[in-house]
């Protein structure tokens, strides 16, 4: 046996080709789209039901309606109580999970493949036949109201909420899915029912099934269950076009948290929609800036200075212009230094310290060579399908990912950095100790910080 050569790292050859999931797509007579992918690694199936309505369609005076409606789906159906529904779910090892994003609501159900038919039936019952009893609405609302109040004591939640509010104002992206106390209090039974009637309708839905299944069989099983709801009187609805958000001015908002040992920071501005032609170049740029452990931001704030447990940046890829943001919690005494360094990283990458060839190589390699591992589990494959359906992406988006990222040039990255990172529009949110940090925040070139309550 030869012993290991420790004078150099082993070289890494090329990886074998890997196959992307293939989706079989059909449309039911009532307009519901059904996408299935066979992936027989474990005897399980995961289902996703996507509807193109999320927190962004909440009425202006009823923030929280989309999420409250989704939360009420498993509180009993027209046939069964919540207790009976949940017992039935447990019997099939069913995991029910509801997510409400700005652009969409996704209801997921995972079950063993031998229980697939029952899983499909339960998902239908939960999604299409909720009972929406007033007593349940009031109870679930009360719990959510208290959660909103608790979020005011949670630094990360305070920072996230305030950042979106100041970034978007009255734009549909300006509030979190959970909504506001006022909004939740304005919602009554009829609001929930009409939200459900408007958006949980067959022609809006995409049903995705991934796992140990036969696409033909599953479609045969889906049809009798899901075709029973027929779209009647209404014209098909479409999601209202998102208004253009207004660009921000450089500004800083501060929330006091007595004796906080860390300051929770958000810095950012408007980003670009998922449909932007600059998507791939921005993915590469973000890797260099703050999208991985060895990004500039994390190496600076954590590995060099020790100010934090971790720092990152992200572009939130939405139908409209999602936020570009930097997130970090830093030790109180280094708050100003951390903000200064963060702004510097965002500014410098636009020119003074443009990404080096080595950094770009790393970013492109990290994105492309890791790509196959995004398709290891049924959850990942289902998530990929949701992205395609929500953003109406071409089927070849995954086979094109690697070549598109590899074709991103240094010039492309420099151009998108200059265009889409805007240091002079940065909005800063600081949640921290007033006595320890507030007086120094004014020196950071954001103008006078505006103090607001949580």
């Amino acid at each position, binding site marked *: 046996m030869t012993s290991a050569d420790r004078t150099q790292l*082993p070289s890494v050859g090329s990886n074998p080709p890997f196959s992307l999931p293939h989706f079989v797509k059909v449309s039911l007579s009532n307009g519901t789209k059904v996408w299935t992918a066979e992936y027989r690694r474990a005897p399980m199936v995961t289902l996703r039901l996507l509807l193109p309505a999320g927190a962004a369609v909440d009425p202006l005076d009823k923030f929280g309606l989309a999420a409250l409606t989704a939360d009420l789906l498993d509180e009993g159906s027209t046939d069964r109580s919540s207790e009976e529904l949940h017992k039935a779910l447990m019997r099939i090892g069913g995991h029910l999970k509801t997510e409400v994003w700005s652009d969409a609501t996704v209801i997921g159900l995972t079950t063993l493949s031998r229980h697939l038919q029952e899983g499909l039936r339960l998902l239908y019952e939960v999604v299409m036949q909720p009972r929406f009893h007033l007593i349940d609405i009031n109870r679930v609302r009360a719990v959510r109201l208290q959660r909103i109040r608790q979020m005011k004591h949670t630094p990360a939640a305070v920072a996230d909420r305030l950042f979106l509010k100041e970034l978007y104002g009255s734009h549909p992206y300006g509030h979190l899915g959970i909504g506001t106390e006022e909004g939740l209090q304005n919602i009554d039974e009829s609001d929930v029912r009409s939200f459900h009637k408007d958006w949980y309708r067959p022609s809006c839905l995409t049903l995705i099934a991934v796992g140990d299944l036969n696409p033909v069989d599953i479609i045969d099983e889906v049809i009798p269950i899901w075709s029973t709801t027929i779209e009647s009187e209404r014209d098909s609805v479409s999601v209202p076009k998102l208004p253009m958000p207004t660009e921000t001015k450089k500004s800083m908002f501060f929330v006091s948290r007595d004796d906080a040992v860390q300051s929770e920071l958000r810095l950012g501005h408007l980003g670009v929609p998922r449909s932007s032609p600059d998507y791939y170049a921005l993915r590469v740029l973000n890797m260099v800036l703050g999208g991985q452990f060895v990004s500039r931001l994390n190496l600076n704030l954590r590995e060099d200075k020790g100010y934090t447990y971790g720092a990152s940046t992200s572009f939130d890829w939405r139908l409209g212009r999602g936020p570009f943001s930097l997130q970090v919690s830093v030790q109180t005494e280094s708050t100003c230094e951390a903000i200064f360094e963060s702004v510097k990283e965002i500014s410098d990458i636009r020119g003074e310290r443009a990404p080096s060839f080595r950094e770009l190589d790393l970013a492109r390699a990290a994105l492309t060579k890791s*790509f196959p591992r995004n398709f290891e589990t*049924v959850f990942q494959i289902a998530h990929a399908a949701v992205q395609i359906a929500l953003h109406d992406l071409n089927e070849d988006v995954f086979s094109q990912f690697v070549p598109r990222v590899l074709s991103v040039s240094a010039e492309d990255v420099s151009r998108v950095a200059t265009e889409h990172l805007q240091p002079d529009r940065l909005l800063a949110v600081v949640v921290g100790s007033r006595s320890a940090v507030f007086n120094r925040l004014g020196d950071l070139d954001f103008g006078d910080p505006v103090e607001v309550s949580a």
Partner: protein
Amino acid sequence: MQIQYEKRILDNGLNVIVCEERSCPIVSVNLWYHVGSKNEKPGSTGFAHLFEHLMFEGSEHHDKGYFYPLQEVGGTLNGSTSTDRTNYWEVVPVAAFERALWMESDRMGFLLPALTQKKFDNQRDVVLNERRQNYENRPYGLVPIALMSALYPEGHPYSWVTIGEVEDIQNAHLDDVKKFFENFYHPANASIAIAGDVRTDEVFRQVNRYFGEIAPGPVPPALVSTTVREPTNEIRLSLTDDIESPRLYLSWLTPSLFECGDAEFDILGDILAGGKSSRLYRSLVHEREIALDVSAGQGSRELSSSFSIVATASPGHTLDELEAVIMDELLALMATGPTESEVECSIASIEADFVYRLQSVGGFGGLSDQLNAYNVYTGNPGYFEKDRDRYTQTDTTQIKETATRYLKPQHRVALGVVPETNGAGLALSESVMVHPK
């Protein structure tokens, strides 16, 4: 559910487990060192976890940080420390398998020459910030510290939390690293599991090549599972925090991981608070509306476990009210036992989870992590079936008896967290105020 794997032990004591899984062209390298915060001593708490951080700062033959060579080949990696063990993993495209072994073996064999005071000071600051972020500056974040020190007597290795005490972290010295490394970070105290699109023989050959030359150290003596507190009276504590809603924690000491009774407590957790058909959810949240949420679960550990019930009070309701209802429900369960249907539902759900969690070859809780967990705790990486049998072979009588034996009211630790402002009068009755840091 048959998991095909092969296990060998190298001459230096390193346990090697290989599992071929060809669905995706990736491979997971998962390495456990059988050391955690239970191996620390009072006065040097938090050291095992601080040490874990140092493992990512470079080693003798690659003294440039651990992440870069793995991220540039498309890998992902992480590590974690618990009371009982420290684990490290990489998931890489198959072509980078050898590089992952090179990196892992270099830090197992050659960490110390690359370690400097500067790296040590930096990671100590990072860890103190991790503690601030996850404990000190988080609502209810200090609860685990108060609970563990109440459940276990002073000096017991579970009486402190893995993150450690601030003073101890601040007082840690670079000199301590060497001794810790020599005692715990060597092949005879480690187990490596490799799962993915690989050939078993080739994996054994490569692992032997990279790890075979590393000298073993002394096998740390097993810590004994001591019977801990002989509780005569319940312990009742209060602490204040910057929160909105008071929260109640009830905890009991229970059988350790894989011991008789451990699985029954997982099922009891489901019956009491697993989802919206569970007893406590129905009673506290749905019917009485006195709680916003409730959860219950067994925290299984090597030396001793604890079972906890946690509930958050609705506005206008007290922790004493919650406690009374919970204790009534518990006594009812101990008197008549669970129903057949409750147990069937729980077992169905637990059995399904066995399938779901083995979908990934890597990561926390994935296939390779699970093989290592079974190997380190039982000596048998293929413990899956036996583990599952613990659930399928129990029954309502055993569950009832287990609950009755361990969940005695006088054995409980009750802890109430109340808001620091306007919290007066909300504290749990007959409780002592504590101030964890």
